């Protein structure tokens, strides 16, 4: 790893001030960034560790019934806290990486990185979550802007993520066994006013909504209706040694049908 100075702010304001100066980068749980730095694929003069900021850790429920998860909350905590109140989200969190990754990895880090194969972006987009930062609220539809790209400005920190809780939801992941990331995964969420379907792992633009499936499922919530749809186009899908674009497109359809079937 290249050398850097590690800064440990205790508050968001301190962290924001540190990030505003020179070549600085925020560190969440470090389960992606630290391996990237060890491989010398990333370097910075100053690394601002968010792990000491108590205010962005933990969970609560707001007046609208939305669940609010601090940006620095670990996957293990989400898996534990929401097993009953939002089981699809808890199940997603409880299947990220492995237990040691889930102890350290955070929801804010995952969303800010927006890896095209990460799990959390699918939950945030399908649930129509609001990403709260130290400066503003960003709707999930505006937040994800392509592979490793989000609406976050330089130095902006995710402090909280607010999830409306759907009537029914599920996350179906077709795992890439070596990395334990999804090869393709689909999060479906059924709300009173319609269904949202978010797909991760498939598109080279990162997480996306499969609108044809959303319309069909809003009219008729059944796995059979998904079977009747054409798979999304293979164009723009990730194609690599693990699976070509057409295969991933097919998996989108299969995972969506399974998610609808398994939704609770």
């Amino acid at each position, binding site marked *: *790893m*290249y*050398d*850097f*100075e*590690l800064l*440990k702010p205790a508050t968001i304001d301190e962290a924001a001030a540190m990030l505003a100066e020179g070549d600085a980068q925020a*560190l969440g749980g*470090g*389960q992606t960034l*630290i*391996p990237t*730095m*060890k*491989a010398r694929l990333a370097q910075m003069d100053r*690394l601002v*560790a968010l*792990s*000491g900021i108590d205010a962005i850790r933990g969970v609560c429920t707001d007046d609208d019934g939305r669940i609010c998860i601090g940006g620095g909350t670990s996957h*293990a905590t989400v898996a534990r806290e929401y097993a009953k109140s939002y089981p699809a989200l808890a199940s997603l969190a409880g299947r990220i*990486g*492995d*237990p*040691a*990754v889930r*102890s*350290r990895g955070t929801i804010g880090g995952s969303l800010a990185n927006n890896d095209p194969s990460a799990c959390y972006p699918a939950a945030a987009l399908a649930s129509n979550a609001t990403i709260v930062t130290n400066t503003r609220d960003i709707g999930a539809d505006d937040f994800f802007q392509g592979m490793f790209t989000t609406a976050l400005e330089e130095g902006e920190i995710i402090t909280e993520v607010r999830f409306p809780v759907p009537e029914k939801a599920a996350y179906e992941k077709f795992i890439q066994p070596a990395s*334990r990331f999804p090869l393709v995964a689909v999060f479906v969420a059924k709300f009173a006013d319609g269904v949202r379907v978010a797909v991760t792992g498939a598109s080279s633009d990162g997480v996306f909504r499969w609108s044809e499936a959303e319309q069909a499922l809003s009219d008729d919530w059944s796995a059979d209706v998904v079977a009747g749809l054409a798979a999304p186009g293979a164009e723009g899908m990730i194609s690599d040694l693990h699976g070509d674009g057409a295969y991933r497109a097919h998996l989108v359809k299969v995972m969506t049908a399974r998610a609808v079937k398994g939704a609770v």
Partner: protein
Amino acid sequence: MGKVTMTVNGKSRTAEAEGRTLLVEWLREGLRLTGTHVGCDTSQCGACVVHVDGAPVKACTVLAQELDGAEVRTIEGMADADGSLGTIQQAFQDYHGLQCGFCTPGMVMSAASLLEENPKPSEAEVRHYLEGNICRCTGYHNIVKAVMAASGQEVAPVAAE
């Protein structure tokens, strides 16, 4: 450079750390606790798993300075008070849960976390929990048997999967 202090296996320990010093380096080079192994150094193999404030963590994927004041347990802290092998360690010996032994520290620490969370896991739950611990000897069946035995459950003569 700065001094970092943690409670390691019940004792307060201090050693120097740079910003980039990983917990595993701090333990192995700073404290000479070399039981925690570095297998892959790419955060995939789990040989370096230790407990930080009670939770399993890959010691190669966390910075020592971030953990100033933390409570850490390593494989050196898994023996019983009289120095004899702890229950999980003894089960690994009894069921031949190690071949070359390189992955064993991480396996034992992960198994200990599992049994704290879930004292009577099913065999499938053991396999799922140990997903992040890789054994290059591929001795998984006996590792699973050892964990089942350590939990006080019956051990299937032939592993299921």
